[in-house]
């Protein structure tokens, strides 16, 4: 990737991240932290490439571990965030039939 273009991407992405968080009510901080935790689960894609191109056994082992961890980040992040936000849907005017 061209150096200057890469810097542009970084700058714009950084502003985007800042803007997203800047206006968030405190009540959503934990779900949003969890949500952004899920988003960096995209590292799975990179780990897949690393494993897919691994030649030696050592590279395969490390790549394998990387994919396991990346998949854990992505799937776990999704499940936890989704569960948290589900409760927000239930609250508000309509109360969930709580136990």
């Amino acid at each position: 990737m061209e150096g200057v273009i890469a810097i542009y991407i970084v700058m714009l992405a950084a502003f985007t991240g800042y803007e997203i968080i800047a206006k968030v009510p405190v009540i959503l901080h934990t779900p949003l932290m969890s949500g952004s935790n899920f988003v960096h689960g995209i590292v799975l894609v990179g780990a897949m490439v690393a494993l897919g191109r691994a030649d030696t056994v050592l590279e395969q082992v490390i790549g394998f571990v990387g994919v396991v961890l990346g998949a854990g980040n992505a799937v776990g992040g999704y499940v936890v965030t989704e569960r948290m936000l589900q409760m927000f849907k239930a609250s508000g005017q309509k109360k969930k039939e709580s136990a």
Partner: protein
Amino acid sequence: MPGFLPENVATLAIDFSYLLVAFLFIMGLKAMSSPVTARRGIVVAGFGMLIGTLMSFLYPGMGNFPLMLAAIAIGGGLAWWSGRIVAMTDMPQMIALYNGMGGGAAAAIAAVELLRMASAEPAATHGPVVTALAAAGAFIGAVSFSGSLVAFGKLQGLIKRSFRFKGQQFVNLVIVAATLALGASIVIAGHPTMQTVVLFFALALLLGITMTLPIGGADMPVVISLYNAFTGLAVAFEGFVLENAAMIIAGIVVGSAGTLLTQLMAKAMNRSLGNVLFSGFGEGPAAAAEGVTGALKPIEPSDAGVMMAFAQKVIVIPGYGMAVAQAQHKVWELCQLLIDKGVMVRFAIHPVAGRMPGHMNVLLAEAGVPYDLISDLDEINAEFETADVALVIGANDVVNPVARTDKSSPIYGMPILNADKAKNVLVVKRGQGAGFSGIENHLFYLDNTRMVYGDAQKVAAELIHAIKAVG
């Protein structure tokens, strides 16, 4: 090995799909920043993740597909299972755990790249800039990995105490310096030795551990948020190495959002990030019960219930103790009973109550408490003076008036909920011990404070019983 599609078609398709992935991630996060659309947000982002993962199988020159599928099944399956069964109260440590896994994955990508360079295949070498990015991502990712695991262990109760010793910061500094020096040598050498790379990773992992072990549980939210931002950055750096736009954009967005979130949290505790990381919070026994006058005055739940039943305004201050006891449903039941009696009930949430910002909001939302009854610190603090009862449930440091008065206290300057201004203070607490910071709470010794000892859920049930008895 040939891919499923001709190389140029596959590359183009992947590039465009990553554009879509980045778009969906940003839209998803944006939707998550409002309670109304939050749930749609995670689904949108999840869709992006699915597209990105599926398209990545098309990369030209890939092999090891059985291994890859097995790894995804193992990692994804375990995470899905653990994420499903975990209790809401344990969410913070699960976020720490999954975040650590992401950091570990980024470090693993870097490890493959750096080891390939160490094996001295001329074709596998990168320029110094890319090598530096790979090493930086490796460093940050490895620190995030081991640090998050320690944070997980602490919150899960696997690691019981904070390990501190004299000169700890100096030792950390030495490890940082050594790791950076090794990283620099890798970049300069271009062909690092195997030993250098292994030592580099070992030191980075060690740093994550030594950095996190001394940090007390009360500061964990800030630390987890910081490591979340770290992992984002590490992912972005490895994205540069792999020329993967989706990783770069997602990583940087999370890195900047996470940094801001970390600052907001540290600010809520009136402490700088450096202070959180390096101060050795609550160090030494100096804070033990100094300057406390009066005694702890216990009260029976039945009497406490009567007190609340005849109050006009009750402000509930939940803390980690409520989370541990899973008492949120009982507490809300109690409050509904009071509301039916015409008592005005409000919930006051300190920004760092519990183990994460918004932790209490999540639990109260789970119990079905409407938003409009929940106020944060700035909104509610003026109202304590008109409250008849401040009911503190398992909260401690966030209501300690020492933060306003005692300059020598480690929590001096932290904004607190002014529970002490209420006419009566009821403190529901398991025992007589100090809070997570280990600081004696002067609120508990005030003349208008009464202690209700017991598990928060049990006490709430007894209070309900008492109020019902009033009729």
